[in-house]
């Protein structure tokens, strides 16, 4: 594991055994999350973004399970002498004490719908303080002060008063901020944000992106940012992984992904977004068909039946392996083999 990496995922495979057959949700994911960086995860719905995130915390919905692979985390938690060590999260029991400590204390997660993070029956302040009291050795009064400071920090006006209000008394944007506040209250090394701005209006979305950039700067946290919005990714991420049918098909710096794509899927995605100042009503580049059903995984390259550069007899037969283009830029496409 590289010195600068907080997390390294190696050959992660996750499946859902269902009555209709087995869904291979993740088909061998390799992904590093460096300290203090924002890693963007992009792809169409169903490609495995959320399951990747949920695997890290072992909160995969049943009957999903990790079949293979490692999720290495560099942490002080669970270490005898308070030094950093490396543990494999995939080997921990989902309900183990260590994993529970890691869940808020080291890695926290925010979701698209903030109501899934909050209980409707307790004041927002109580819930945020609870998270802190459970993981840190602080008094109730200290927890209260910390919660007020955090709400203030994430831009909630009049924090001392709002602390006593219930989640439904907040607007969508404010709830989203409060959720981020709660996620950060224990000063985690990593924040996982799963489509956190998808349901927000552009002005609020822009504020959230600003907030995340500040947090990375001020706390040095790593952020795993999941979205299908390429505009958002271009503005927030340092590095990007593009997923398709449970695989990472390309990864690189944000510049590489937007200006020097190697994988035809990445190029197609970038070309399919309408860009401001395009000639109006010009035809957009499309990707033919749609993502195949998880029960009908194509042979060879998973993208071959939609790919504009598909080579018959090659792409439908051979499974591509990632090719290294230098500087961490990789793509799994047979054009380069």
């Amino acid at each position, binding site marked *: 594991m590289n010195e600068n990496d907080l997390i390294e995922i190696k050959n992660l495979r996750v499946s859902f055994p269902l009555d209709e057959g087995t869904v291979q949700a993740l088909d061998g994911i390799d992904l590093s999350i460096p300290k203090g960086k924002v890693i963007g995860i992009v792809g*169409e*719905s169903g490609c495995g973004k959320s399951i990747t995130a949920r695997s890290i915390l072992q909160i995969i919905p049943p009957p999903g399970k990790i079949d293979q692979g490692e999720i290495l985390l560099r942490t002080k938690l669970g270490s005898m002498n308070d030094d950093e060590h490396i543990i494999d999260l995939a080997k921990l029991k989902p309900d183990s004490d260590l994993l529970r400590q890691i869940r808020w204390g080291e890695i926290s997660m925010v979701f698209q719908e903030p109501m899934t993070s909050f209980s409707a029956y307790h004041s927002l302040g109580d819930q945020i303080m609870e998270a802190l009291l459970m993981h840190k050795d602080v008094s109730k009064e200290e927890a209260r002060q910390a919660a007020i400071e955090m709400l203030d920090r994430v831009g909630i*006006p009049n924090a001392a008063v709002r602390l006593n209000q219930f989640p439904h008394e907040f*607007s*969508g*944007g*404010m709830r989203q901020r409060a959720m981020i506040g709660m996620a950060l209250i224990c000063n985690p090394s990593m924040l996982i944000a799963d489509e956190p701005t998808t349901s927000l*209006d*552009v*002005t*609020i*979305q*822009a*504020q959230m*992106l*600003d907030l995340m950039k500040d947090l990375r700067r001020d706390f040095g946290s790593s952020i795993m940012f999941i979205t*299908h*919005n*390429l*505009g*958002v990714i*271009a*503005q927030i*991420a340092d590095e990007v992984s593009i997923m398709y049918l449970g695989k990472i098909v390309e990864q690189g710096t*944000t*510049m590489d992904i*937007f*200006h020097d794509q190697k994988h035809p899927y990445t190029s*197609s*995605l*970038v070309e*399919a*977004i*309408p*860009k*401001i*100042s*395009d000639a*109006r*009503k*010009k*035809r*957009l*580049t*499309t*990707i033919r068909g*749609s*993502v195949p059903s998880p029960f009908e995984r194509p042979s060879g390259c998973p993208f071959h039946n939609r790919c504009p550069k598909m080579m018959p007899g090659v792409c439908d037969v051979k499974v591509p392996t990632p090719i290294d283009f230098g500087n961490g830029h990789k793509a799994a496409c047979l054009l380069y083999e």
Partner: protein
Amino acid sequence: MPGDDQLLLEVKNLKKYFPIRRGAFGTVKKTVKAVDRVSFFIKKGETFGLVGESGSGKTTTGRLILRAMEPTEGEVIYHLEDREPFDLMKLSKKELWEFRRYSQMIFQDPYSSLNPRMTVRDIVAEPLIATKALQKEAVTQRIRETAKKCQVSIEFLRRYPHAFSGGQRQRIGIARALVLNPPFIVCDEPVSALDVSIQAQILNLLNDLQEELDLTYLFIAHDLSVVEHICDRVGVMYLGRLFEMATTRDLFFSPRHPYTEALMSAIPAADPSIIMEPIKLTGEIPSPINPPEGCSFHPRCRYAQPICSQSIPEWKEYSPEHFAACHFAGELELKGAFK
């Protein structure tokens, strides 16, 4: 203002106030001004966009101008090819029924707007059957033609919609809207729930259909890049009010309203070499039950002066076809979207 011959419809002073019932006897205490004194026009053959934060009144406006919902007040004058101009709000029930063949709607979530127990054919045929627009023999022919135009394959007609992907379901929704050959379609967030690759397919389809069939669209969306791509002119709503209306180019690159400027600055550029500087709007979006006095944007506006909290700015045309409701729309030098 364009001449009457160019217009499809004119909306004048449209209002929709929803009563909020509270208390044991369900007495009306307050109202939500979902749409308040809105005036605009849509030209024949164009795509007119409506943008604004959620809850700003876009869907309500779309429904009102089809009279899918009764307004509190206001006129919607239609100029249809084969008829004298008329106010939709004055039509009788029976006349309104006949009007259905001139306009239809497409929705965001094609799944929830499709009945899972109906086959694709029944779904597409429903408006035809309901309005008795065609003889029985002609129905099948029309359905096949419409399906083909909308890229719904003929084999799908016998199947049920739940088996289809989001893109296919949206095509079915479009076919249903087009089966009566209406000249005007209200598209309410038709691509908001779709992945980019499918969004591109649907936007191309809507453009092709518009060219082929001479359609006019009202296009409601919150993704400003999509709106910039597909719309000829755009209106911006905030708390039930129309704040600005202009050609897409003017609105995006020479806005006159401070709220439009803030929206434009917040569009995330799909290019990491463009550094965004979004204008921070302070405070929360006010409640539509209790909108601020004067200009409803004043508590969040960085250009606000004392007059802004005292009087409601007039809806005025500042340059040809460029309308705005801001006390300083004639003076401010505002920044547009990045190019």
